[in-house]
């Protein structure tokens, strides 16, 4: 109780926002699909951090519970994502995400 109260809300959220923004930038500017995946992971972690901070602020366990969900989600996402990356590499012999733009009509 006492330790969580000392966790500063403002800095925590700032850090989460910064991390989220970095992840977003990474998502938008990297073409290598593995880096895109990593950027998504960063964004997920940023969101998790925001949950934890918020949970600490109000002294509720919900934030931590949500973070566990986010971790599970991230693990699932990574397994599916890596499988997609493997298929992608087989198909195109490269990892450039833009190479998959078959949908222009």
């Amino acid at each position, binding site marked *: 109780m006492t330790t969580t109260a000392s966790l500063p809300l403002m800095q925590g959220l700032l850090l989460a926002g910064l991390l989220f923004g970095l992840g977003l930038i990474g998502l938008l500017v990297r073409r290598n699909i593995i880096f895109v995946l990593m950027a998504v992971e960063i964004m997920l972690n940023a969101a998790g951090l925001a949950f934890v901070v918020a949970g600490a602020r109000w002294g509720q366990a919900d934030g931590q519970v949500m973070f566990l969900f986010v971790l599970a989600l991230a693990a699932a996402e990574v397994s599916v994502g890596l499988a997609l990356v493997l298929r992608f590499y087989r198909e195109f012999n490269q990892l450039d*995400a*833009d190479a*998959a733009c078959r*949908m*222009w*009509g």
Partner: protein
Amino acid sequence: MLELLWLVPALPFFGSALLAVAGGWCSRRVLTVVGVGSVAGSMIVAGLVGFRFLRSVHSDPVYGQTLWTWMGVSGFAPTIGFHLDALSLVMMLVITVVSLLIHVYSTEFMIDDEGYRRFFAYMNLFVASMLTLVLADNLLLLYLGWEGVGLCSYLLIGFWYREPVNGQAAQKAFIVTRLGDAALAVGLFLLFARLNTLNIQDLLQRAASQWSVGSGLAIAAAALLLGGAVGKSAQLPLQVWLPDAMAGPTPVSALIHAATMVTAGVYLIARMQGLYNLAPSVQTAVAVVGALTLLLAGCSALVQRDIKRVLAYSTISQIGYMFLALGVGAWTGAIFHFMTHAFFKALLFLSAGAVILSLHEEHDIYEMGGLRTELPVCFWTFVVGAASLAGLPLITAGFYSKDGILLDVWASPLGGPWLWAAGMLGALLTAIYSFRLVFVVFFGERRTAVGSKPGRAMTLPLVLLAGLSLVAGYVELPKLLGNVHLFNELLRTVQPVTEYDNLSTGTHVALLLFTMVVALLGISIAYLLFLLRPGLATAVAGTGWGGALSRCWFEGWGFDRLYDRLFVRPFLWAARVNQDDLIDQVYRYVAWLCRLLYGALHRMQTGQVRWYAAVLATGSIAMIAIVVFS
């Protein structure tokens, strides 16, 4: 006995249905039995009913039979019901007798045709429709029969449908009569809207009590019904379909001309007589239409080369007589002429059909010639028919009916010398063209070898009809020649019989003699022109004026060309102009707009995941900004 009335139209109808549904498994013999037997049964029932009815006609002049209510929609409840009075009795008897003889004739005429079953199915339906028409007690059921007759004429005129020309003739008949039918339908709507019933007797009563003589509504209704009658009966200006209707088999022509289709209009006007009494101007129009048609068609009949077309124009002209009689108020005279005309016109068509069959489908009268000795039965029956048509005095039925009409036209206040003169001129033309056929076809030298000769099934109806054409007139004789009035006495129970006392005996004798002289004069002219001096007619046709006139007559006064210019071509022109539909343009712009929007939107769908993510992020930020800052 009278309760059997419903069987009269029902028997041929069932015959037709049976032939249509089950006829495929039957042999020709069974088909013949069903096809002819149903009409024969109908005739027997009609005879029994008629016999029973005639015994009590003067005490009880109307018999009604309602089978069931057709439909009931808020006050509109037409029945399937039949109405028997002297008028429908005469029509019914003539239709069944003549139809039966034509059916018997057809069993031999059509024996080699692959469409034997189809033919009898249509013919039975034709007879059933016509009987429904004349027996109906309300105008809606009458209209059902009316349309049934139109349908059957279409089916039968185009019976040999493999020839495109026949199909066109059938369509022409259908479309032209449809114009009249549309007028009739509008007339029925008008009558129902104003008088709130379609039952003929109620309708006439209400009209007489609610409308004054010459009121606008009565005139409109009578004129619309006249439109329908003009279409079905092939009168001016809708007469163009009948000559082309010769495309069907000859028994069909006989049926259409003698017993069914074309007399429907005459019957309609006679039946709606009460309405025409309220609209004297329309009644005069009926007489004028009849007189004009009579002359125009008579002239056209003079110059045709196809034997059936001569007879077709002759029918148009004789129906013109009936209209003339209706128009001057000689209601019974019109029905009398209908009866005799049914006999001799059926006779002429069937006889001509036998000639055509014997000469292997030769229709041109100038290719016939000299058949007098080769086909004696055809010759004598044809002569009887032609004499009756021409009105050969004293011995033929046609003389008495035509003379009756001419007397009435002279004496009636609605008639007068002008209409009488038109009728007289028509009688002269009739005598000339009918004996032109006799002399050209049966006299002179032979031009085509005769093939098969008609057998018993064909000659028997011919002989019977010839007998009827001779004796049918004796039921109604003018005052000076026997003074027999059986027919008028019968019809007096439904229709007023006008007797003209203003006619002095001297005038009467003069008119009678005049009619006789005109008929004999016509026959003599035909003898002179077509047997004695055949060069004379060709010489007249060779001169400039004569040639132009005979060409004009040959083409039926150019009505076909006129209608082609007036209606067909403008219609085709409009269709061509509008072939890329004007209204389509609107929808074309709608389609163009959709394409434009699609062109703009499809650029967003690039397939680039990072671009999607950027858009998503931008959108989210924008949404959040809106939520936070507003």
